[in-house]
């Protein structure tokens, strides 16, 4: 579904992505992990066309995305730090996105219901706490039944209850055969979701394995332990 080929991006001298290759298929739930500043968000933003890569191509359903925009109809994106126009209210933001998307089918408002956002619809974005902003971001990402969900640190800043709700929603969507791409540092939360692990380091993809394979390789039962083992190993290298 998404094929990344030889992708490179540098910001000045900093090499954020270095010849990254990645293939993601329908129905997979991929965790993108790695230390801070390893290029996870840059990779995600490149897929979304928000960052323009210096080299390499990204294909969505077989077509290169450079200069395209309609492929984003199939993507729901939840940013790490949602930034919204300050003086618009939650309701206005959601209405505006609906109007811009021009989506004809029934929108998926489960998360809006679950987070009880309707009661906050009149609140301006600038007055919201970080957690509530994340709830808005999450609701927007799921609103149009996208085939691909890209979630950048989805549970950061959410309270345990909300984060549980979001997790349930992700599992539900996964069962519908959507491709889900998650970055997260909270490894415990991912355990029951993830089918594949992509480990990035210094702008490169260190490995891309299925969860079972990783558990076998590291001889660990828990995903979190397996990953911290990998992290430790990579630091010693």
């Amino acid at each position: 579904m998404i094929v990344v080929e030889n992708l490179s991006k540098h910001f000045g001298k900093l090499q954020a992505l270095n010849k990254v290759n990645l293939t993601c298929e329908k129905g997979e739930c991929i965790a993108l992990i790695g230390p801070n500043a390893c290029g996870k968000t840059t990779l995600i933003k490149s897929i979304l066309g928000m960052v323009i890569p210096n080299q390499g191509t990204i294909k969505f359903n077989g077509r290169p995305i450079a200069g395209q925009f309609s492929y984003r109809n199939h993507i729901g994106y939840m940013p790490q730090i949602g930034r919204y126009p300050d003086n618009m209210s939650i309701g206005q933001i959601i209405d505006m996105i609906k109007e811009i998307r021009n989506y004809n089918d029934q929108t998926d408002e489960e998360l809006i219901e679950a987070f009880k956002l309707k009661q906050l619809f009149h609140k301006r974005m600038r007055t919201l706490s970080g957690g509530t902003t994340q709830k808005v971001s999450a609701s927007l990402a799921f609103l149009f039944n996208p085939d691909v969900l890209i979630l950048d640190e989805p549970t950061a800043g959410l309270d345990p209850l909300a984060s549980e709700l979001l997790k349930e929603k992700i599992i539900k969507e996964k069962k519908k055969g959507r491709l889900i791409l998650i970055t997260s540092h909270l490894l415990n939360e991912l355990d029951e979701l993830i089918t594949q692990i992509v480990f990035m380091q210094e702008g490169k993809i260190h490995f891309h394995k299925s969860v079972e394979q990783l558990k076998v390789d590291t001889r660990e039962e828990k995903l979190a332990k397996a990953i911290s083992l990998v992290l430790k190993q990579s630091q010693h290298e």
Partner: protein
Amino acid sequence: MNRIVKFVILDILKNKVVLFYTLILAALSWSVFALEDNSTKGLLTLLNVVLLIVPLVAVIFSTIYLYNSTEFVELLLSQPVKRNRIWLSLFLGLSTSLLLAFFAGAGIPILIYAPPEVSLMMLLMGATISTVFVAIAFLSSVFTRDKAKGIGIAIMLWLFFALLFDGLLLFLLFQFSDYPIEKAVVFISACNPIDLARIMILLHLDVSAMMGYTGAVFKDYFGSSYGIYIVMSILALWVFLPYRISLAKFRKKDL
């Protein structure tokens, strides 16, 4: 397309700055015409308002607005919207609302008090200058992420075109007064949208006689019927080029 323009215009109209700008323009124009019994004198006073305040407000407001709408742009970019469309919508939204403010504030009194030919020229030039400086604001805001720097560039550009340029031109005129440089002056003043607008309005005010020989040369070049087409196409270029360059830059920008 028009959906995003609508959001931008509504957002700007909610912003009190544009309303304030309209009121100031209205107060200035009405009082100028009420004080002077000769409408030409009033127009000459207003000319300086149109040529100094209108571009200043257009360039600063647009630059600040563009920096403040970074979030809006970021939000739209994760949606299926073309980059060209976002940029054009912002441009149309900003220029439309500033034009509305200009027409509501200064347009009505000018149309009422001044003779139709002159007043239409004044409105046309005010509107064009406003749009030119919105385009210049797009240029200055796309080059740097730093808001203070961006606004600084915008103010410097306004200062250059509104004040410094004339000083340089005057300096040139004095230095080379022994040579026949009138044609060169015509060419050089075409490099400044504010000067072009000023010349156009003055020529229609019939005070060009006071500008001496250079005035006569100007009248020769710009006063003829197709002179206005030349001026309008140069000014259109002044809108198109900065916008086009900023668009090229925006399309490659990382957000």
